[in-house]
């Protein structure tokens, strides 16, 4: 519902003023980082930045249709395809956070070599698992993990929720289930959940974010000029340092790629 109203707002706003529309993923928006960046950016430029917090799938679709001027997404394979098809002018992977596997607090810690053997264990023992199943970057990562195990998850133990990260975590907490999540969203909700981090730190669990400059050919109203300003602003050292030091609930969820 929230997203629908954002869409309507977007459509309305297109008619009125020159705005920079940044389509981004819900999980990233919910960390509050973007609003902080927006403040910094708007201090310097007289441009109104509007964030459309949608799933990665929808964000890319908005880019294709020229409904957004800039994309902040984390779904590398889809992004590469997006670039190949000529929908984007430039793409830079500028920061990353981590995915973690969370599970019920009662879970007796056993150590697994890597996240894949853990997920295999979950599958073999049919332990409850909640998936976002909404085509988001997080969901894509989870699919990639199952895929590399040669597993097609389905059955009573596997709950395909089709909602955002926060609600997926709440569902996992209710069902005492495992779930793949980005660290930032988990840290924000930690106190409300009966979940804990069961596995973390693998290279494969890196959650890489990219910024994509939308090709002005995609739509008549693409605000290319301001999008480029934001694109360059984002990649300045000063901004990258700000991202690196951004703190939620005592942790710094983001690391940047040093040039």
């Amino acid at each position, binding site marked *: 519902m929230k997203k629908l109203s954002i869409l309507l707002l977007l459509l309305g706003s297109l008619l009125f003023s020159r705005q920079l529309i940044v389509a981004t993923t819900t999980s990233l928006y919910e960390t509050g980082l973007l609003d902080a960046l927006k403040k910094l950016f708007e201090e310097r430029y007289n441009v109104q930045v509007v964030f459309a917090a949608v799933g990665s799938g*929808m964000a890319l679709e908005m880019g294709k249709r020229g409904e957004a001027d800039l994309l902040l997404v984390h779904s590398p394979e889809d992004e590469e395809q997006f670039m190949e098809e000529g929908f984007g002018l430039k793409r830079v992977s500028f920061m990353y956070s981590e995915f973690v596997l969370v599970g019920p607090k009662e879970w007796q810690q056993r150590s697994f070599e890597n996240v894949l053997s853990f997920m295999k264990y979950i599958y073999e023992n049919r332990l409850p698992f909640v998936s976002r199943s909404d085509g988001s970057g997080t969901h894509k990562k989870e699919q990639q993990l199952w895929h590399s195990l040669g597993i097609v998850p389905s059955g009573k133990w596997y709950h395909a929720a089709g*909602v955002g990260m926060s609600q997926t975590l709440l*569902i996992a907490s209710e069902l005492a289930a495992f779930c793949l999540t980005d660290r930032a969203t988990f840290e924000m909700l930690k106190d409300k959940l*009966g979940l804990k981090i069961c596995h973390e730190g693998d290279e494969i669990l890196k959650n890489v974010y990219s910024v994509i400059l939308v090709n002005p050919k995609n739509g008549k109203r693409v605000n290319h000029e301001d999008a480029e300003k934001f694109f360059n602003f984002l990649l300045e050292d000063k901004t990258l340092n700000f991202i690196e030091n951004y703190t939620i609930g005592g942790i710094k969820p983001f690391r940047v790629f040093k040039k």
Partner: protein
Amino acid sequence: MSELVEVSLRSIYVNCFATFIAALIGVPLALVLDVSKSRFKNILILVFQTLVGIPPVLVGLLLWLLLSRSGPLGGLNLLFTTTAMIIAQIVIALPIIITISHSHLARVDERIRLLLLTLGANKFQFMAAMLRESLSGVFSAILIAFGRVAGEVGAVMIVGGNILGRTRVLTTSIVLYTNTGQFEKAIFAGLILLSIAFTVNFMANLLSRKAEG
């Protein structure tokens, strides 16, 4: 495709069942309200009238608080089941059915009431006769309630969770398809929803013609 069929069937089941239960509770309540002489009658009516406008998401939130693990009814394990969705829709439908049914009952000619009383009808017979008199109004109350719950997404999204094969219905899949940019599918699901509403209303019209004819 089979997924959409399954989702549509779940939608029909949840909406019809919720409306049916709400009618089963709401219509008798409206009748009792109609005959009661209590001082609280008008206050009660006002409360139900207000609840007609309750935002469904608020219903969803309150039920969530009730049914979640830490809530008072957490032991029932109802959250993220179709049962929870049905309960939410009953809560949304009930005030509509009561308010509209009651307003139709209140409009029944005073002379009919007097006639019934002078003929020595007992309370139960009196209510039955009143229901017969305002049947078409009660019917439209139920249909309006059905329309409201069939198009509702906020509450079922919160208490159902949009889980594939368990709690995903047409409205929540429209939200999901829209968020993932699958507009064709979203439109298609919307059309199915509209055709369900059309069919239900069409059948209801046939029924009410039969009842009157």
